[in-house]
């Protein structure tokens, strides 16, 4: 995948910020979608505060997924944890295959409405890419490099910290990026259980048969996903020069 060019990057960020701060500017564009003189721009809440809630929910869930998935990935690639690899894989896969909507349905009776059930659903949904990439990254370290680390006299913890994790870092970051981007879209369903986010705009549109709202909700969600993807790519690129050689 080619990195996004600077022009596109500025365009995406500019559009996103402009829409969040001054959405009425775009009213003429959306007006034709509505027949009965309904509002063209979402007016039932502040878009900027929805964006912040949406982003915070996604980042909090991805942070929790990262901590758990990376820790689990490290554990099952150590001699002591190797026997737990199949079990961990199954659990993480269940998290991915179990539909987030179903997770919400299960979680609401337990933790109530609001951000909490959404966080749980996104956390479970985001584990798989990070977990698998962590394992791939740790197992992909060249055998001679690991042998050299042992031969130099690194303890297992030093080998992990100074050699294995840095070499696996690009793949781990890629997993985090995938997880984040998937969750930006998935988080919209959280609004069905009263989590604040762009889902509110889409649901409001669906309830009042307002196509402009639905489209706006989808567009800002998409722009945020692209911006996050791009930001993570920039972070990953910091590690690229160091790992070009194998």
């Amino acid at each position, binding site marked *: 995948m080619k990195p996004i060019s600077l022009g596109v990057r500025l365009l995406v960020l500019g559009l996103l910020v402009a829409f969040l701060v001054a959405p009425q500017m775009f009213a003429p564009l959306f007006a034709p979608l509505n027949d009965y003189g309904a509002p063209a721009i979402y007016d039932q809440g502040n878009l900027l505060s929805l964006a912040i809630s949406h982003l915070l929910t996604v980042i909090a869930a991805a942070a929790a997924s990262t901590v758990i998935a990376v820790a689990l990935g490290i554990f099952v690639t150590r001699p002591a944890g190797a026997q737990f690899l199949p079990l961990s894989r199954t659990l993480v896969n269940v998290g991915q295959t179990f539909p987030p909507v179903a997770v919400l349905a299960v979680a609401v009776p337990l933790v109530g409405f609001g951000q909490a059930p959404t966080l749980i659903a996104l956390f479970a949904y985001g584990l798989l890419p990070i977990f698998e990439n962590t394992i791939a990254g740790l197992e992909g370290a060249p055998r*001679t*490099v690991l042998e*050299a*680390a*042992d031969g130099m006299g*690194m303890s297992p913890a030093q080998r992990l910290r100074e050699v294995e994790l840095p070499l696996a870092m690009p793949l781990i970051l890629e997993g985090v990026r995938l997880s984040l981007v998937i969750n930006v879209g998935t988080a919209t369903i959280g609004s069905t259980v009263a989590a604040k986010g762009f889902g509110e705009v889409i649901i409001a549109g669906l309830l009042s048969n307002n196509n402009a709202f639905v489209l706006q909700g989808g567009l800002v969600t998409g722009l945020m996903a692209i911006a996050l993807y791009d930001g993570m790519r920039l972070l990953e690129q910091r590690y690229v020069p*160091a790992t*070009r050689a194998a």
Partner: protein
Amino acid sequence: MITIERICKRYDLTTVVDDVSMLIEPRTITVIVGTSGSGKSTLLRMINRLVEPTSGRVLIDGKDTRKEPAHLLRRRIGYAIQGLGLFPHRTVADNIATVPRLLGWDDARVRARVNELLEVFQLDPAAYAAKFPHELSGGQQQRVGVARALAAGPNVLLMDEPFGALDPIIRSKAQDDLLDIQRRFGTTVIVVTHDMDEAFRLGDRVAVMSQGRLLQHDRPEALITKPADPFVSQLIGSGDKSLKLLSLTTAGEIAEPGSADGPAVTSSTSLRDVLAELVWRGASAATVVGPDGVAIGHIKLASILAHGRQAS
């Protein structure tokens, strides 16, 4: 002094190293040679405990290697392997600094040592310290690998097929460098190889292994003149035994007073090369000069020939 006492390594039913005992003198190069699967790498790796012996023990300067944690032992023993295993995410300088940092040296001392080693290995610190391994040629990577192994000034250096991936010309240069470095630092070096010529070129002592057993551990000349086992003769090859023997002695060692006509040979030239030179020239003697170019005597074709006989 490294003492290997009745060491064995078994995996389930296969015995990889079978009751090997060896004495390795300090400040010498010992080459362990054998075919693949002979157990030579396993034997080497039991010295720094990358492989734990099933039975037997290894003593370094009289101290049992099991008396301290394996990773602390390994910081005192240099280790260089085929394919080098340079850390791809670290610069040349950071790679070389690995063991000194593990030992907790302060930054100034680490930097000074890294620069010293880069100079020794003919890599200009200004140009190479900040480079990443993939930016170096194969020969340069190999030198960095050995520099890293020597960084903390270990008394013992273990090398597992260190020159295996190099082309013949760079390989020959790397072997010369190793001989220089060994003389300079007085390190006890143990090299594993499958290449008999390399073994003869480097080794003060050569140990021949086959199927986990140590067949013979002796001076290279003795391997040729008194092979302890048919496998040893087979490994050495029967066709050019006399030439191999000649390659182990230098002109300086048998030079006699006097001088001869024609171009001189340097004292470090092997008798094999002097012979080739004399045959080519059709001469019967050559003057021998020291490294400084001053004549130290001459060498006669007849004495070279005498040296290549088994009886000598």
